[in-house]
């Protein structure tokens, strides 16, 4: 009798528990699949040393999201959905990027994470994001060569900036160059690309030196450069402290022509330092406010209207915008936010014709964009002279070493020494 009563009770309890579990699982699946909107999670340095460079990127994100949402959103899973933009401040600290990436993935259930200014921040965030099989975008000019299934890059690569830039400098100023840069993965890679360019176009690297972030005393380096007396300098100085090189060099009388792909394009130093501090600097951005393309004018007008406090529309503002537009196109094409379907759509050479630097195409086998780049010189009064359109360049570095990510992504980064044809440029280093 006792047993009889007890048994149904335990059975009921077990059934209830089982039903509850199934129900909660269903609800869970349901809520994950039918979220009300598409979640775009971004992490950028809104404070700290890199906020000068990274803040305009968030303007680009916000403008693109506004345009998509104002147009009614994106048709996915049978209904029009809005993009929900979540913005975190990475505070210019690498360790924040790992924590905040986890928050994007697990708390916000992001459909895509776009993060980081420096390459060090990028790798902290990217590892976390791709490990959890979520799509990741880095929207700077970068060192290129990252071949990963989940990682996409909207900004120019060294093929679009370093190679044509250094070639032009060698042709116009002479072959002898020196290289100084911040001591981290990006500038080390740009150093390798500079050696490659020197090897390809008959230049010689007289010396190459790297400095920790936060170095702000440059007299020893200025003296060293003057002693070498190069035809031109190549710089990869990153952060508000390192760019103090420029006023010190100018006051110290060092005025050799210089090329950089971070100065001006990232930090709009010509707007932050009194003229003529940056005079004779040459830059090859894929986009900055001064790019003479009809798209650029419209883009800057919209951006200024929305963010009147913006000092200058830098390269990041442009590529933050491009990345959101590319994702919007991919979601619409895939008709879903399911990761593999969206990656397939991105790999189908998705285009952003309204990109501010001129039409932009994601090359699906490369996960990098094909785009225009432009050569400018900074004048004594800090206006920019447009010198020439470097043309529409395909990203071919990974293709040339046999990577096709539509078929198989190696999940690693390649650098110039990995290209057997270029290995000779690095012997003895």
């Amino acid at each position: 009798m006792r047993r009889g009563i007890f048994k149904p009770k335990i059975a009921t309890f077990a059934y209830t528990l089982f039903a509850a579990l199934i129900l909660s699982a269903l609800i869970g699946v349901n809520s994950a699949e039918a979220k009300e909107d598409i979640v775009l999670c971004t992490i950028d340095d809104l404070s700290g040393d890199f906020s000068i460079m990274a803040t305009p990127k968030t303007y680009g994100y916000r403008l693109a999201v506004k345009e998509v949402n104002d147009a009614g959103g994106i048709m996915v899973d049978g209904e029009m959905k809005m993009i929900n933009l979540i913005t975190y401040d990475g505070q210019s600290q690498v360790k924040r990027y790992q924590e905040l990436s986890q928050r994007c993935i697990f708390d916000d259930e992001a459909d895509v994470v776009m993060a980081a200014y420096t390459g060090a921040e990028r790798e902290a965030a990217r590892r976390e994001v791709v490990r959890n099989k979520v799509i990741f975008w880095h929207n700077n000019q970068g060192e290129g060569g990252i071949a990963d299934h989940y990682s996409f890059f909207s900004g120019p690569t060294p093929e679009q900036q370093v190679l044509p830039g250094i070639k032009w400098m060698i042709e116009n100023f002479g072959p002898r160059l020196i290289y100084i840069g911040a001591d981290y993965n990006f500038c080390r890679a740009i150093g390798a690309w500079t050696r490659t360019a020197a090897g390809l176009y008959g230049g010689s690297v007289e010396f190459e030196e790297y400095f920790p972030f936060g170095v702000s005393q440059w007299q020893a380096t200025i003296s060293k450069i003057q002693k070498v007396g190069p035809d031109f300098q190549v710089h990869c100085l990153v952060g508000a402290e390192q760019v103090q090189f420029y006023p010190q060099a100018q006051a110290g009388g060092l005025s050799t022509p210089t090329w950089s792909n971070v100065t001006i394009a990232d930090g709009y130093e010509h707007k932050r330092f009194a003229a003529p501090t940056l005079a004779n600097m040459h830059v090859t951005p894929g986009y900055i406010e001064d790019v003479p393309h009809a798209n650029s004018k419209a883009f800057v007008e919209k951006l200024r209207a929305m963010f009147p406090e913006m000092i200058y529309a830098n390269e990041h503002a442009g590529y933050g915008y491009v990345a959101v537009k590319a994702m919007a196109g991919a979601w619409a094409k895939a008709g879903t936010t399911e990761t593999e379907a969206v990656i397939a759509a991105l790999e189908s050479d998705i285009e952003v014709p309204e990109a501010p630097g001129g039409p932009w195409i994601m090359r699906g086998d490369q996960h990098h964009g094909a785009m225009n780049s432009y050569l400018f010189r900074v004048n004594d009064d800090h206006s920019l002279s447009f010198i020439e359109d470097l043309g529409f360049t395909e990203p071919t570095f990974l293709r040339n070493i046999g990577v096709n990510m539509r078929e198989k992504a190696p999940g690693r980064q390649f650098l110039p020494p990995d290209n057997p044809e270029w290995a000779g440029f690095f012997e003895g280093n």
Partner: protein
Amino acid sequence: MEEFALIFGYIYQYLDNIGFLILAASGLIIIFGMMGVINMAHGELMMIGAYITAFTYYAGVPAPIAILLAGVGAGIAGIILERLVIRFFYKQLLSSLVVTWGLSLMFSQGFLLIFGPSILNIPTPFGNFPIDEQTFGIYRLVLFGISMAMIAGVWAVFTFTRFGTHARATMEDPEMADALGVNTRHVYALTFGLGSALGGIAGGMFALTATISPFFGINYTPLAFITVVVGGGANVITGLLASVLALAGSQTLVNNLVNVYVGYLGMMGTALIILLVLPRGISEYLERRKIRTERASGRE
């Protein structure tokens, strides 16, 4: 001629590094060295000085006056801070550390919200002069000269003025000073204000050569502390001078022998070794030696 340019280059870099450290530390020797307040917001007081200099300069004020106004502005900010916050945390090292660190965050984030991530800096004046094939900026030497003048000024104020005597008495024994008729409240506020003003002037000087951003101060605070701690509290001015001679010396030497990266490590290594051997700083050692020699000569 070539050797001369080389040697001059080293001396120039040495003076430049000395000037940089003294300017960064000049306000802190008063606030930390004398008053014992771990002021983590020292760099932000310098940042305020840099902003005041830039705003007044672009409003038409000549640069030297703009820098003096930065001193006045930062000094007033310091006095307000002292009255509202700092005075509750004297003799509480850890509390003052946390409180001033909080203040530094509030200042930098507040400036970021109000003025954005950066403002236009001021052109570096005076040009340069050539020696052999190298050229050297004059402003860096001016920075060195002003840093020396500031140290001399601090020494004169604390040695020869009535305020200096009162301040030293107050820092030594506040109750006794109070009993003897010194208004210690005023002395504390003014001393903190003077330290802040020196920070503001240093910030204004750097505004002519650096990026002006809300995070301007972050670079200076740690170096300022290292310099003052290595110098020690027994005699802050001789301590500071000995400390910068050693730190800037090792930095300049290693910069040129190896590279700038190792140069920074060399400076930190020198600070570490000095503090291992002389945990209370160089000036404590110098004072002890002085007393010992005095006693020895007294016995004869």
